[in-house]
């Protein structure tokens, strides 16, 4: 039975109670403890900077060439906080409830409440760092409504909120890098977790410029390596996003929770052809003014401007009159898929829907629309060559955010002693579906405010030993390095005919069609055997050029795809086991007569956490979700 270690007390007192009782370490003693942070996105950079400010000895690793490149940079829309600056009835409780409901009641109450509670402090911190959030002429911070909620609680910096928040965290990190107690290693990829006696005690990394394999000891390990939506190949994620860090930890004993819960973002640009390497996201904020529709008639090839109003199906407004075009992401994506599958999709591949600004331009004028979304319209034109002021945009759902990830308790510590997991890499706050503008928030809150308290609380009970590496560490490190070398060489020595990229494409196709926006038992059983076959072919026919001791992008990709191939099987296993529909997990067998998700609280009100047994075998552990403070309700946006 998994212990989530939720502190006692009323919901609004839990975090305070935890902090009041958390153990501390004397400032002069903190430098004797070594913390390793893997990843320099928002969660990694913010936690590493905060640890170093406290005086801990910190070593940070990123595979990027600079700590400013992580994919946090791409989040456009904004970051939520329950400041209630707009006097529109917002509160910590309401934000907590929106997030919990948005996640279809598959997250922990205490975690979600803490996220909302710490949200306000984050805005203060970011402003102090110089993040240029949008302001009113009076000088006060501006807000907008975002992602399926009824209040305006989203803070934003044009369409580049993620970039600006990341720069704040990156600058804080670089400021510490100039000090003695923090060392940043760029172009180093974590390829193994070193465990001693069931405790995380270090990592093994590969220097991506030289190929050198080294091991590093720590007293606490923090993994903040982001999401794994790129497993679907075509996704909104960056080319290098991968699951290797969390998968390596998983194979060393850390449980993987709800891996099949991937959010499909409704406003991505559709796939245009086979050459495509990724899908570009258009900010969800476009849905505030754009209206989504498809032609009523299937296979209607007329120019959209020639289709009269009465022949258009504004399907979100039709199905969800209360929320309309602002229905949450999972619901909007699924509704789009439903229309596309019905043959009403538009565009050359019939895989898109229209997002139309004609009415908004008529109501507000082109200038206002340009002011609000000008950069997005320019981006759209650059990518597609089309002018969205003249004709509707074409959008489609795309794999986006991983709600699943390594299982963590309230302290964000995994079941593997000493391993903390932050940001998108963990499973914790978003349940089965994440609300817009909560992702930047979670990454920042985990890094700035939660990990510094909980990691210190943990370390206070540990004897610092990483700075004087013991014989047992040296032995474990050697075994780890040997294992990594062996794996790399095995990949290099297959010398087949198919590149890692090509395998990844095939993997993505299987997952998209059989375990994507909607799933059913029959397709997934087929997916399982296809994936097993693909995995076998991979180890027989992979082609990796070059050597291990050089810059070798193909070798990096091959290692990541090998992990993705294993993870894909667990994703299918997880989706098969959950015989209900909740949030982004839509099992076709479990739906209401009008096509809405049918949740089963009697049998599935738990988090599925999987233990790795090797050889594509897993054991299920359950963390039951107890709802003490809210009543479970059917999530309706009608």
């Amino acid at each position, binding site marked *: 039975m998994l212990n989530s270690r939720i502190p006692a007390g009323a919901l609004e007192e839990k975090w305070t109670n935890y902090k009041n009782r958390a153990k501390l370490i004397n400032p002069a003693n903190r430098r004797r403890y070594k913390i390793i942070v893997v990843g320099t996105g928002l969660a990694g950079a913010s936690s590493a900077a905060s640890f170093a400010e406290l005086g801990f000895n910190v070593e940070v690793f990123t595979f990027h060439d*600079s700590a400013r490149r992580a994919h946090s940079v791409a989040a456009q829309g904004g970051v939520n906080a329950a400041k209630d600056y707009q006097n529109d009835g917002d509160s910590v409780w309401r934000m907590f409830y929106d997030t919990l409901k948005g996640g279809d009641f598959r997250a922990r109450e205490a975690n979600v409440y803490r996220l909302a509670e710490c949200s306000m402090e984050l805005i*203060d911190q970011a402003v*102090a760092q110089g993040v240029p959030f949008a302001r009113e002429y009076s*000088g*006060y911070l501006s807000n907008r409504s975002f992602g399926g909620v009824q209040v305006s609680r989203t803070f934003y*910096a044009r369409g580049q909120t993620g970039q*600006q928040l990341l720069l704040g965290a990156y600058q804080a990190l670089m400021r510490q890098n100039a000090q003695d107690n923090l060392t940043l290693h760029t172009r180093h990829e974590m390829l193994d977790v070193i465990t001693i006696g069931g405790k995380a005690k270090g990592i093994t990394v590969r220097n991506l410029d030289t190929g050198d394999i080294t091991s590093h000891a720590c007293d606490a390990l923090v993994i903040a390596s982001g999401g794994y939506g790129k497993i679907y190949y075509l996704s909104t994620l960056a080319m290098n996003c991968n699951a290797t860090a969390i998968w390596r930890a998983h194979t060393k004993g850390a449980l993987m929770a709800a891996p099949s819960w991937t959010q499909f973002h409704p406003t991505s640009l559709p796939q245009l052809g086979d050459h495509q390497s990724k899908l570009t996201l258009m900010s969800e904020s476009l849905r505030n003014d754009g209206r989504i529709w498809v032609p009523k008639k299937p296979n209607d090839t007329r120019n959209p401007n020639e289709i009269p109003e009465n022949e258009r199906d504004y399907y979100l407004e039709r199905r969800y009159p209360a929320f309309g075009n602002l229905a949450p992401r999972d619901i909007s994506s699924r509704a789009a898929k439903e229309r596309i599958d019905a043959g009403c999709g538009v565009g050359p591949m019939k895989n898109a829907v229209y997002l139309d600004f004609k009415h908004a331009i008529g109501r507000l004028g082109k200038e206002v629309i340009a002011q609000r979304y000008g950069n997005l319209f320019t981006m759209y034109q*650059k990518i597609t060559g089309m002018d969205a002021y003249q004709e509707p945009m074409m959008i489609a759902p795309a794999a986006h955010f991983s709600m699943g990830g390594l299982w963590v308790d309230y302290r964000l510590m995994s079941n593997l002693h000493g391993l903390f997991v932050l940001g998108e890499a963990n499973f914790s706050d978003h349940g089965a579906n994440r609300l817009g503008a909560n992702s930047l928030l979670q990454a920042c809150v985990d890094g700035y405010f939660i990990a510094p308290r909980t990691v210190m609380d943990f370390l206070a009970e540990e004897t610092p030993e990483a700075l004087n590496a013991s014989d047992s560490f040296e032995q474990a490190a050697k075994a780890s390095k040997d294992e990594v070398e062996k794996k790399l060489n095995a990949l290099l020595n297959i010398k087949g005919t198919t590149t890692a990229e090509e395998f990844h494409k095939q993997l993505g196709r299987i997952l998209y069609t059989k375990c994507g926006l909607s799933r059913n038992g029959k397709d997934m059983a087929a997916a399982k055997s296809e994936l097993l076959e693909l995995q076998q072919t991979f180890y027989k026919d992979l082609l990796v050029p070059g050597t291990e001791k050089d810059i070798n992008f193909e070798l990096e990709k091959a290692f990541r795809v090998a992990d993705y191939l294993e993870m894909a099987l667990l994703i299918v296993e997880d989706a098969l086991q959950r015989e209900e529909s909740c949030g982004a997990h839509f099992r076709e067998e479990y739906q209401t007569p009008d096509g809405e998700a049918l949740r089963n609280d009697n049998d599935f009100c738990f988090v599925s956490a999987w233990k790795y047994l090797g050889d594509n075998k897993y054991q299920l552990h359950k963390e039951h979700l107890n709802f003490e403070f809210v009543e479970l309700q059917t999530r309706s946006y009608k």
Partner: protein
Amino acid sequence: MKLTLHIWRQTGNKDKGTFETHHLDDLSPDMSVPEMLDHLNIQIIKSGGDPVAFESDCREGICGQCGFVINGHIHSPESHTTTCQTHLRSFKDGETLHIEPFRAKAFPIKKDLMIDRSALDRIIESGGYIGVNTGQANEANSTLINHDLAEKAFDAAACIGCGACVATCKNASAMLFTSAKMNHLSMLPQGAPEAAQRVKNMIVQMDAEGFGSCTFTGACEVVCPQSISVFNITEMNGRWLWSSK
């Protein structure tokens, strides 16, 4: 569509480097430049060669990792555009492209089109931050910042750290990069207390990294994917003068 590519190949910083020619004839105008290189690399790998090393991550023009020189154009023949946001429809069918890495003394070539831009990180490290620890912040609305000032700070803050400004400058100067960060922070009330120190530290570091001086040709602004204004450089010079009094 068809393209002939002359791509820069160089095994390491000490190697002299040379152009290698490839003919591609099954391209789609919707491909981005990195996607064209992905496509080329698969062909190279399958014929037993060493694929072209290049960096590209977000492919949305925001992470700042990509950037090549294409027919003498920094990033792209399109203006204010990153390489990853350049699609083949920007070129003519049958055209010949020369693709090279960004070149500057402070950006050593690692391999082929990959360069080392860590000098930019060290400039940030020297003072491109506001010295606030986690937890020290006061209430966000207690510091009022006028809309126009916030927008102006944003304009400077939008830099993606790609290094195009350095690559296009005949002096390989990093003045646009350095001044944008400096002004972003120093024009805001939160960043004002450290402004004098910041200007000294960042300029000293910039010089130590081997970047050239600015002769104000304005070439940097023309290629900047975020259209960052050269007036940032003027403002930085002003700050430098005031701080050295």
